[in-house]
């Protein structure tokens, strides 16, 4: 399928073209970057919400409920859910859709499942570009559900405006709540399965953790009790997401985030391209292979060789 056809299809709301593009992104096909670069100016309109938390804490159900609420508010929704790929076979069982049946025929909802394909951090390498594709497609709200996160899968903060961290009653004590990692990235905490015993205690523990947070800005993450099964607390949650977004805009953080994100992305891309360029001039050349052998035999050291090769490369570039 041609670049032209993909770009046109996505901008005119054809879901098949969007789905194709996401696959090309996942397969790291060269066409994908071409299409994304054409779409870039049409992005930046969607509100991006990350949902993370431990396996079985009700993330998929919550995403479905949030979608229902946004549909009531006449917003279109894109959903990207990430599940783990097997470290052994590379295969994956992507089961988040099972909880999302009620939206399965809604034209204004697009759901896509992704495997992590070896990437750590709670998302897949392709997630950020997939979100961008859905953004260009014109969805008002994009929900990104991470893999069941343990403690350090915090990458979702890099792509979401608002991060929701879910927890459930009875999951560890107050020490768990003050550990570093996932507990630090929440803009909103959700204690889901509020009908289970210990729900109020969980809320208290999270609030106690927040009370001792010295570096908190002007936004104190609220803790909201929800029940994914009955839908209790969801309206409040969506109101709070909206409030957080308004806060980001009025405090200037939205703009600051945008700049930070653009810088990171540009630098990552340059690093990637530059490395690829450098290596393509080196790999397979006998001097290079020989230098590697010398390093292995301890007759040369990698620090000096790296310095030398990069200097040579830069000199050649100037010529």
């Amino acid at each position: 399928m041609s670049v032209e056809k993909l770009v046109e299809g996505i901008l005119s709301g054809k879901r098949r073209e969007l789905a194709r593009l996401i696959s090309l992104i996942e397969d790291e096909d060269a066409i994908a970057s071409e299409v994304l670069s054409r779409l870039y100016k049409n992005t930046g309109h969607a509100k991006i919400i990350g949902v993370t938390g431990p396996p079985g804490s009700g993330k998929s159900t919550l995403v479905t409920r949030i979608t229902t609420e946004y549909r009531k508010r006449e917003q279109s929704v894109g959903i990207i859910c990430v599940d783990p790929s097997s470290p052994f076979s590379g295969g994956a069982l992507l089961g988040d859709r099972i909880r999302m049946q009620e939206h399965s025929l809604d034209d204004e909802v697009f759901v896509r499942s992704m495997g992590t394909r070896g990437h750590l951090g709670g998302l897949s390498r392709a997630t950020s570009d997939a979100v961008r594709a859905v953004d260009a497609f014109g969805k008002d709200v994009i929900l990104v559900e991470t893999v069941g996160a343990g403690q350090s899968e915090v990458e979702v903060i890099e792509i979401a405006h608002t991060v929701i961290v879910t927890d459930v009653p009875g999951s560890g004590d107050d020490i768990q709540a003050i550990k570093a990692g996932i507990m630090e990235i929440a803009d909103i905490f959700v204690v889901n399965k509020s009908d289970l015993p210990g729900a109020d205690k969980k809320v208290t523990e999270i609030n106690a953790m927040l009370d001792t947070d010295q570096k908190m800005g002007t936004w104190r993450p609220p803790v909201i009790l929800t029940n994914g099964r009955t839908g209790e607390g969801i309206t409040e949650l969506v109101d709070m997401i909206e409030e957080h977004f308004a806060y980001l805009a009025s405090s200037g953080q939205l703009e600051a985030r945008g700049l930070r994100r653009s810088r990171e992305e540009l630098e990552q891309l340059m690093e990637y391209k530059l490395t690829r360029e450098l290596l393509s001039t080196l790999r397979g050349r006998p001097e290079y292979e020989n230098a590697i052998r010398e390093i292995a035999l301890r007759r040369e050291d990698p620090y000096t060789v790296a310095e030398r090769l990069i200097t040579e490369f830069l000199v050649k570039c100037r010529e």
Partner: protein
Amino acid sequence: MSSKKIRVLVAKPGLDGHDRGAKVVARALRDAGMEVIYTGLRQTPEMIVRAAIDEAVDVIGLSILSGAHNAIFPRVMELLNAEGVDDILVVAGGIIPEDDVPMLKEVGIAEVFGPGTPLQEIVDFIQSNVKK
């Protein structure tokens, strides 16, 4: 990790009450390195086709035990055709009488796997018949 992966939608159309077989097959495909999207029970043909398009799958595996295959499978194929989808391999499994198989193949079901089919046979069939 960057090579093209086969994506499979394992779908349960109709009113079946359990999905043990579908789960066993899903697991085997996962272990063969495929990305398997499982829909859960009681899917309509419309839901299956929509999911297949959004997920850009290469294969749809339909599992049915209730005997409604002669109505549901042709409907799935009809919807796929209406959407202009001709690059998805569709296979089926479950309780399907041999007499019904020729008609199902005629509407475009590539293969029908009955009870007792070795899992490797399904994996091999998919790997050698995906359309891209």
